[in-house]
């Protein structure tokens, strides 16, 4: 069972994630994005790099997209693929996290031009947080 659901989109790519907390939702979304762009291929764990990320946004939806854009930017521009997320915390419109990346010189499986804000709402129903994210291919 995947931790995310791929949805049909005529031209682009959408996926849905759920989490028991906002932190869990954000973590799963980042891992889903990584799995999509690498086709889930296990990376040879070398050249590990740790980054402390701090992001601020006016609402949780924009914060989620900022977070995913950050993960995508490192993958596309610096060949750094997300490996682990520690201490992800969301408070008062701010996300902080310690992220471990692995250097990857192989081309990505899918080129995502951008993470869009299309129809983006983070829902909280029956104790579950959920969001559907659309990527421009």
């Amino acid at each position, binding site marked *: 069972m995947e931790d995310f659901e791929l949805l049909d989109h*005529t031209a682009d790519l959408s996926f849905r994630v759920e989490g028991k907390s906002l932190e869990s939702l954000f973590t799963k979304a980042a891992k889903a994005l990584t799995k999509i762009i690498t086709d889930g291929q296990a990376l040879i764990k070398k050249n590990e790099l740790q980054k402390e990320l701090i992001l601020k946004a006016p609402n949780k939806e924009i914060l989620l997209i900022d977070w995913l854009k950050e993960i995508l930017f490192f993958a596309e521009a610096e060949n750094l693929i997300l490996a682990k997320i520690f201490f992800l915390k969301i408070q008062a419109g701010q996300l902080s996290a310690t992220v471990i990346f692995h250097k990857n010189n192989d081309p990505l499986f899918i080129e995502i031009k*951008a993470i*869009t804000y299309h129809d983006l709402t983070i829902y909280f129903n029956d104790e579950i947080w959920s969001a559907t994210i659309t990527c421009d291919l």
Partner: protein
Amino acid sequence: MSLELKMINENLWQLPQVGEMRVPARVYAKSNLIDLVKHDKSLQQLKNVATLPGIQNFALAMPDIHQGYGFPIGGVAAMDVNEGVISPGGVGYDINCGVRFIKTNLSRQDVEKNLDDLLTALYQTIPTGIGSQNAIGKLSETELKKVLVNGAEWAINKGFGKERDLAVIEENGRMNSAKVDKISSRALQRGASQLGTLGSGNHFVEIGFVDEIFSADISQKLNLKKDQLIIIIHTGSRGFGHQVCDDHLRKMLVQKIDFPLPDKQLIAVKIQSKSGEDYFAAMSSAANFAWANRQVIMSLVEQTFQKSLRISSEKLGFRLIYDVSHNIAKFEDHLIDGKRKELCVHRKGATRAFSAENFSGGTFHEIGQPVIIPGDMGTESYLCVGTKKAMSETFGSTCHGAGRMMSRRKALKSTDFDSVMNELRKKNIKVMAARKKTLIEEMSRAYKNVRDVVDTMHKSGISKKVVRTKPLAVLKG
């Protein structure tokens, strides 16, 4: 949704103005194409576009319309410059994604035996696929900024192509509104190694031939004849443009707006505002990057042909016919209620198709602006020209391609690599791509029939067919 569509004529449909819509919406489509539109969210997206402030006449969709994010792909929206808004979503992430059409002095028979070698040589010369880079080496920040200001002219000054090419590129390959101080360091970082690269997805370099001539007069004026070898190049502003769009969308999202926004991705700001002007300056820089990119690729293709076929430049006769953008916003004058008015025309998956009257001299003053409408890798493409009717009905715009109708995911599930290759082999079309997956995603069945799309606009009198081309060999992104 479909019940709301009213037929204006056999190629044109209207969605009435309801709710927050400021104007009605119109879709150009033959009946079989309009049925396809009803299966995704593209009509709702078109209705959303009609709610944007300052929109004039109609929110328009071309027959290749399909679901995008925010704007539908195949959409045209023209905004009043004083009252209206500019929307990065109305241009898209791949700013100035576009197509160029090149003629040669060769015929298809001249290269038939060399096609495999040619395609392999192109594959080795032009970086393709995901994250492709380093076609011409990494540019310094100073040099990249020169690209952003000078567009195709930068490439020509560096020896990629000829001065005469500029006259046959939309905007002469350079938007003077570009400002490099509106570009983020991340965009510069992403763009530095990507000039001269094709990218992935539906981008391509196609070696083809003129298969049918619809207008003998116009094709003669463009020096095109049956069986003549031609090249089509489709790519855009790569990661640079994506980052520019993203940066400005993000800035706009935190601003207060005084109009209802049905979808965050449609975020727009007043054209006459600092953020509107900043976006337009940055978008112009990305447009210039894309024109330089296609110029460099064209030159690399020419060099590859010369080397691979061992012929001189004169004998090859590489000549750019035209280069069009299909993801862009431009300031243009159009007639609204009989009065000339300056508008900001957004074309998202739509091509400018200006009539002959818009050109003060030369061939285009006689024939109108050439429009290039590529189909998928297994079918056919079209060279058309813009018309007076395009000026009065669609703000001088037409379709941009076949238009996807099947998601990539469904395409991958519906067939396999060998079947796609067999189908192409039966048609004597050779293909190469960085990944097998791309070729499955780009199979013909994933796209609408380009012939229906082009015929809709031809019969509507918006863009007239000049020649049809067919592919011989395709390098996919």
